[in-house]
């Protein structure tokens, strides 16, 4: 029954989506407002149907309905409820279903918030969203159908992949990632809609999609950081980023979206880079699809590769269609995409944004080339090669250093041409800050050139961005007599977009400094110790093995150790690194013990143990500042949130603009907002 509801909801949803696409497209072309309205309603119906299918799947999982092949593939009666529910995204078919559901939700929301707007922009934007929706629904009724019938019905299933049921973060990381990925579809749809409607010359589509983009970017940021954290907490190697293809796949659209967030300001302020910005948006969307293709088709193996099969061809065709359509639309709008503005001076913020885009694009390209190179090398030379961490570090660390530097220079430079005195006044404090950082890093024993540069420019960017807050707040205190906290909050309130950006910069500084410190000053200790013995960690710390124990859980067997952390001989903490044995996996899944302090982590992984419990092999990694990576990620998201908050007074302007556009005849081209 559940299976039939789900399967039929998906088939009907595909039909509804196709009809909706035709209605909004031809309604806009022929100026038939009632067709467009009907098409809008179809998006709500589509959302309802995909929601029904998604809930049918969750119900199937929770009720252990093994007649559904997806449930038979990832379900098990022994799996705890939480992991049963989140196994919705634990394998290919379920994750495509979840993707389709998020997309249908966002489509309905875009329509809900913008349907009163006149003109052709929203109908064509909706058409794009529905077009992408059709792609996922074709996957769902075809190669990734999750509701196939299993006969005879098995009594139990294998449960989710052990790696996916070993940590609560698996309930957080994937939904964040899908919200980020799918969210990038919305700005893409606005861009395509604007091109189809011939409205790409003004910044209306950019303003409409700004919050969507920022929201998707924040989700993607959070997802990447949560993924790093998961890797750190589950894989037992004490690292958080391995340049795994799927990590790269999530990082590339983040880079291009970050580039867009900056370059779009050049278009808004100076009327430049119109074509470039469109390219970035299309690239961001294509990279989300490409990433899914690379990691889900089994072309590249990765922690996240679910299955192999012919689903890859569907993705390739989709990418080809997207590229072709964008090319045709860009070509058709070429005369509207000419730059009509000027930068004001070589040493201005505009130029820094161009460099920022250069390096972010180079970063994306490096990651793309590195990720695809094994495929190319195998095709051309017939030899398997690896492109991993040493390659990516060598190639991208210089780019990161350059970006850190620009992150300090950009906020300090004005849009207008800066004179020497201003440049000197603005850049002196950051320069002093980086000098201090250099001395501290040298004193602490850093000798690697790039690590030194990273510390220097992180300090540079830190001082420059904090300086913007200090200077702005001080000015308000002088001119308006406000108290310091009031001046600071009013400063941010008055220009949330700008200061939200600076907050995000501070988060990036935290992440960059933490990663540099963690990789520079990381120390490892490994040893096999008997019960009662201690393993020395550095000068004054040690872990003592108190006990090796085991316990049976319904879905797994756990072997753990109880350790006492000693500092100068004093007991300061108890740690319990474990190994988890799942029936479906030959390799145990580790649960390292992590003791976090603001200064850094002590990370203990159980590597091996004696069957009789007499000894255990431990690997202890001391990792300075690692918690600041997670904290920095949160700061970045806070920055995005501040930038997204509506500017006071803007709501009124928008309402007025909407009232104005509603007065015009439907189908007429209207400017989108007045500013």
């Amino acid at each position, binding site marked *: 029954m559940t299976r039939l509801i789900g399967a039929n909801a998906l088939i009907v949803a595909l039909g509804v989506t196709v009809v909706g696409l035709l209605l909004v497209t031809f309604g806009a072309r022929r100026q038939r407002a009632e067709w467009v309205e009907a098409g809008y309603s179809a998006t709500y119906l589509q959302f309802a149907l995909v929601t029904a299918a998604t809930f049918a799947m969750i119900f199937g999982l929770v009720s252990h309905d093994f007649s559904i092949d997806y449930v038979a593939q990832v379900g098990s009666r022994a799996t705890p409820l939480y992991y049963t529910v989140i196994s919705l995204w634990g394998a290919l078919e379920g994750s495509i279903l979840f993707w389709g559901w998020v997309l249908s939700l966002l489509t309905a929301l875009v329509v809900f918030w913008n349907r009163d707007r006149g003109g052709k922009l929203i109908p064509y934007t909706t058409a794009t969203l529905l077009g992408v929706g059709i792609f996922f629904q074709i996957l769902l009724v075809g190669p990734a159908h999750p509701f196939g019938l299993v006969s005879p019905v098995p009594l139990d299933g294998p449960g989710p992949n052990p790696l996916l049921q070993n940590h609560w973060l698996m309930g957080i990381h994937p939904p964040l990632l899908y919200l980020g990925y799918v969210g990038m579809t919305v700005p893409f749809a606005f861009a395509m809609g604007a091109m189809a409607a011939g409205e790409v010359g003004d910044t209306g589509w950019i303003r409409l999609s700004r919050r969507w983009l920022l929201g998707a970017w924040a989700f993607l940021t959070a997802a990447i950081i949560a993924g790093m954290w998961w890797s750190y907490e589950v894989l037992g190697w004490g690292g958080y980023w391995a340049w795994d293809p799927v990590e790269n796949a999530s990082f590339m659209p983040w880079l291009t979206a970050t580039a867009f967030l900056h370059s779009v300001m050049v278009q808004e302020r100076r009327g430049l880079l119109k074509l470039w910005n469109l390219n970035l948006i299309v690239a961001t969307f294509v990279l989300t699809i490409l990433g899914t293709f690379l990691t889900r088709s089994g072309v590249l193996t990765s922690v996240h590769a679910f299955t192999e099969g012919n689903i890859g061809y569907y993705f390739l065709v989709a990418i080809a269609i997207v590229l072709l359509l964008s090319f045709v639309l860009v070509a058709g709008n070429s005369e509207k995409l000419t730059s009509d503005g000027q*930068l004001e001076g070589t040493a201005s913020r505009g130029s820094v944004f161009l460099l920022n885009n250069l390096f972010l694009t180079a970063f994306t390209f490096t990651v793309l080339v590195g990720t695809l190179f094994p495929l190319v090398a195998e095709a051309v030379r017939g030899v398997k*090669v690896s492109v991993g961490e040493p390659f990516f*570090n060598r190639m991208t660390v210089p780019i990161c250093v350059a970006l850190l530097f620009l992150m300090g220079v950009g906020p300090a430079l004005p849009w207008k041409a800066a004179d020497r005195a201003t440049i000197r006044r603005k850049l002196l404090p950051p320069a002093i800050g980086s000098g201090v950082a250099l001395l501290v890093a040298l004193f602490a024993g850093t000798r690697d050139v790039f690590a030194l540069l990273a510390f220097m420019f992180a300090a540079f960017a830190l001082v420059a961005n904090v300086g913007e807050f200090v200077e702005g707040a001080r000015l308000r205190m002088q001119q308006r007599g406000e108290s310091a906290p009031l001046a600071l909050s009013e400063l941010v309130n008055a220009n949330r977009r700008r200061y939200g950006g600076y907050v995000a910069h501070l988060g990036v500084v935290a992440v960059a400094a933490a990663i540099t410190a963690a*990789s520079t000053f990381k120390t490892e*200790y490994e040893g096999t110790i008997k019960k009662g013995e201690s*393993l020395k960690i550095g000068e004054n710390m040690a872990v003592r093995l108190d006990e090796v124990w085991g316990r049976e859980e319904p879905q797994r067997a756990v072997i753990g150790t109880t350790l006492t952390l000693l500092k100068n001989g004093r007991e300061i903490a108890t740690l319990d690194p474990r190994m988890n044995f799942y029936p479906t996996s030959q390799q145990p899944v580790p649960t390292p013990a992590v003791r976090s302090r603001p200064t850094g982590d002590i990370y203990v992984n159980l590597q091996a143990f004696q069957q009789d419990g007499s000894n255990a092999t431990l690997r202890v990694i001391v990792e300075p500042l690692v918690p600041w990576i997670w904290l920095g990620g949160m700061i970045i998201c806070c920055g995005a949130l501040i930038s997204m908050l509506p500017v006071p007074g803007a709501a009124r302007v928008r309402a007025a603009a909407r009232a104005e556009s509603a007065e015009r005849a439907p189908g007429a081209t209207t400017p989108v907002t007045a500013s």
Partner: protein
Amino acid sequence: MTAVMVTTSAMGQSVTGATVAVDTVLDRRTREVASELRCPVCQGLSIADSPSELAQEMKGLVREQLASGKSPEQVRAYFIDKYGEWVLLAPKPEGFNLLVYLLPAALVMGGGWFVWRYVRRHTDTPAEQV
């Protein structure tokens, strides 16, 4: 989002009970070579990072060979011989592999030139005014 390469970490030896002399130079060289070799049973981790048993054994082998006087190049050659070129986490910069290094560099240079021209063309200086 990227990790700066470990260069200064002095890896501690396991010390149980009695103090063991710590050969930091060998440790560091082992770590350097091991961080460039791929663990065959993991997902893209180096044998320096991987907690797997095989990686631990391979790391021990690297250490032994370095201690016996082999050069890092000879150790790498041994592993390439055994597992193929695939075992190197960064492709050797020679022949066709040069592409993966040169393409990004070419983009930075070409892009840099383009940005330079773009800024000059779009800057408000009377001589350049279009």
